[in-house]
C-alpha cells in the first residue's frame, strides 16, 4: 500500500529528444491511475521510469513517501505486467510465479502458500504445471497478473496489458483487472492507448500528448470538461466534433463562410473552435425550446446503423461532424439535417486548443 508521486519528471534521450516534459502526478494510496495517449506520447516511458527500467533525467519519483530515483527496479517493491506478458518460457506457471519470491529468499512453504493462493484467486490452479506456450492468450495474461500479485508489492504497473487480446477477451479481462485491483487495494498505474479502457478503469485519468500532461482528473470530469481540443478528440467514441469559427460581432462564421446565429456567445477576435459531443445534439427539435442553442444545418454524407443507435455523418462549414441518434435514423445520404447544440453542452476552445468556457 503506497502513494505514488511524480514531481516535474523529465526524460531526455541523447542530448535533445525530450520524451517526457516535466510531469506532475499524485496518486493516492489504493487508486488506479490510467495514463492514456496516442503512441509516442511518453506514457510508456513514464511508466518505465516509475518501474526503474528507464533512468530519470530530472524531477523525482516517490513511492510511499520515499524517493526512488536511484533505486533499482527490484528495490522499489513494484510489480509490472508487460504488454507481451514476459513470462519465462522455460519455466512452468508455478515457477514463473515463484521466481520473484525465491529471489527474495522466502522460505519454500511460504512461497507455496502464496503461489497457490494467487492461483486460486486467478483460477490458475489447474494450470500450475503447464508451460507458457501451452496456454491461451487470456491464461498467459492471468499468469502475468499472478506473478505480480504473489509478490504483494506496493505498486502495480500495467503496460498495455490487454492490447494483445481479442476484443471480447479484452472486455472480460478489463473487468477482472478492475475487480482484482479493488479487492487487493494496491495502488496501480495503467498505461493504455485505448480510451474506452482508460475511461472504465481509471480512478484518476491522465491524458498525455507529446510528452506532457494535457489533463488530469476523474474520467467523467474529463469527458464532460476536456481541457483542450486534443483531450476532446481523444476521449469519447466517436470523438467530439470540432468546428472552427470566427466572429463578425453579431454572429459566427464557419470556415466556408456560412453564417450562423449565436446569441451571447463570446468568441475571441482571432477565432475559436466550438466542440460538441455526437450524443449531445438534438435532432429536429424545436428551436425555441433551446434558447441560446446553436443551430447547425448538416449535409449528410452517410448513415451507419449499429443497432441500438445510428451514427449520422455530416458536413458543416466544410468540416465533418458525427451525430449519434437513438435507434434507426430516417436520414438519407444527400439529405440535410437540422441539429441544435444545447447551450450547456457547447464546448468552446481557443485557437491554441485550450478550453475557454467552464
Amino acid at each position: 500500500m503506497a502513494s505514488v508521486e511524480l514531481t516535474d519528471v523529465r526524460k531526455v534521450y541523447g542530448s535533445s529528444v525530450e520524451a517526457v516534459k516535466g510531469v506532475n502526478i499524485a496518486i493516492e494510496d489504493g487508486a488506479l491511475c490510467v495514463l492514456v495517449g496516442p503512441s509516442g506520447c511518453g506514457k510508456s516511458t513514464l511508466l518505465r521510469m516509475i518501474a526503474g527500467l528507464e533512468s530519470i533525467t530530472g524531477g523525482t519519483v516517490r513511492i510511499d513517501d520515499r524517493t526512488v530515483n536511484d533505486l533499482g527496479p527490484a528495490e522499489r517493491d513494484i510489480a509490472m505486467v508487460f504488454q507481451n506478458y514476459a513470462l519465462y518460457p522455460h519455466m512452468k506457471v508455478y515457477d514463473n510465479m515463484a521466481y520473484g519470491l525465491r529471489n527474495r529468499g522466502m522460505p519454500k512453504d511460504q512461497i507455496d502458500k502464496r503461489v497457490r493462493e494467487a492461483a486460486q484467486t486467478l483460477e490458475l490452479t489447474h494450470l500450475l504445471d503447464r508451460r507458457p506456450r501451452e496456454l491461451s492468450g487470456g491464461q498467459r495474461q492471468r499468469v502475468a497478473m499472478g506473478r505480480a500479485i504473489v509478490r504483494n508489492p506496493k505498486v502495480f504497473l500495467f503496460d498495455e496489458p490487454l492490447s494483445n487480446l481479442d476484443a471480447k477477451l479484452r472486455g472480460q479481462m478489463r473487468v477482472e483487472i478492475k475487480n482484482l485491483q479493488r479487492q487487493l487495494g494496491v495502488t496501480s498505474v495503467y498505461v493504455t492507448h485505448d480510451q474506452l479502457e482508460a475511461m472504465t478503469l481509471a480512478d484518476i485519468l491522465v491524458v498525455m500528448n507529446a510528452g506532457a500532461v494535457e489533463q488530469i482528473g476523474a474520467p467523467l470530469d474529463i469527458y464532460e470538461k476536456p481541457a483542450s481540443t486534443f483531450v476532446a478528440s481523444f476521449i469519447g467514441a466517436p470523438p467530439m466534433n470540432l468546428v472552427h469559427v470566427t466572429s463578425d460581432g453579431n454572429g459566427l462564421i464557419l470556415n466556408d463562410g456560412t453564417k450562423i446565429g449565436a446569441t451571447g456567445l463570446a468568441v475571441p477576435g482571432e477565432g475559436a473552435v466550438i466542440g460538441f459531443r455526437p450524443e449531445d445534439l438534438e435532432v429536429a427539435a424545436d428551436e425555441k425550446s433551446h434558447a441560446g442553442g446553436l443551430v447547425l444545418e448538416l449535409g449528410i454524407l452517410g448513415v451507419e446503423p449499429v443497432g441500438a443507435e445510428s451514427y449520422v455523418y455530416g458536413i458543416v462549414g466544410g468540416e465533418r461532424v458525427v451525430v449519434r441518434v437513438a435507434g434507426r435514423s430516417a436520414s438519407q445520404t444527400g439529405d440535410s439535417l437540422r441539429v441544435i447544440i444545447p447551450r450547456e453542452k457547447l464546448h468552446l476552445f481557443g485557437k491554441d486548443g485550450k478550453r475557454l468556457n467552464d
Partner: protein
Amino acid sequence: MASSTRVTFPNKLLPYLLLAPQLAITIIFFYWPASQAIQQSVLREDPFGLATQFVGLGNFKRVLNDPNYLNSLQVTVVFSVATALIAMALALLLAVMADKVVRGKGIYRTLLIWPYAVAPAIAGMLWLFLFNPSMGTLAYLIRSTGYNWDPLLDSGQAMVLVVAAAAWKQISYNFLFFVAGLQSIPKSLIEAAAIDGAGENKRFWTIIFPLLAPTTFFLLVVNTVYAFFDTFGIIHAVTGGGPGKATETLVYKVYNDGFVNLILGDSAAQSVILMVIVIALTAIQFRYVERKVHYG
C-alpha cells in the same frame, strides 16, 4: 497442414533436376569417398601396391589393439572436450559483453567475427610464429618471466597450444550464433526478471542461459564435429602431432598412417571408426541433450 501447402511440379522430372547438383556434390564428395574407405578398410595392400588381399575385420582388430591408436583416442577426447568447452565458453562471454556495448556494437561484432575468415593452416602458422620457443614473440615474453615454455618438447604445453589455436579459430563462429541467440531473447523478459529481484548473475543463469539452450546445443554438435575433423590443418601446422604422439588426434593419425606411413588398410579402418564415432556422438547428443533444450 504441410501437405496442403506442398508445391507440386507439373513436370515429374523437374524436382529431380533441381535436386541434382546438391545430390551430385554429396555423392561425389561424401558417399563415394566414404564407400571407398569402407572398401579399403577390409583390404590389405602389399608395400608396393601390387596386390590386395581381403582380410575381413583384420584391420579393425589390429587398429583397436594398437596402443598408439588408444593413445590417439585419449588425445582426441582431451583435445575435443577442451576445444569445444573453451571455444564455447569464451564465445558466450564475448557475446554477452558485446550485447551490453551501446556504442560501436557493429564494430565490435565485425572485429570478433574476422578470425573465422582465416584458413586453419594460416591460423596454425600464426600461433606457431607467436609461440615457437625459438622465434615466437609471445613465447619470448613467456620465457622472460622465467617459465620454461617449450611446446616442442613438453607434451602438455603442446596440447595447450593446439587447443588454444583450435578454440581461437572457432570462437568467432560460436560468437556469431550466441549474439543472434541473445538478440532473440525479448528484452522484457530480462526486465521482468530484474523487477523480480534477480541480480545480473542470477538473471544470466536462470533466464538467459536456459533460453540460449537451443543455440548452445547446436554449437555443441558443431564444435564437436569441428574438433574431430576440421582441426587437422591447425595440428598439422602447429605441432605435426608431436612431441611424440602427444597431439596426434584420430583424424591426424588417419592422415599420418595413410599418407605418410602408407598403411592404407589401417588408415581406412581408422577413418571408418572415426565416422562411426561421430555419427554416434551426434545421435547421442540429439537423443539425450536435446530433451533438456527449450525451444521457446
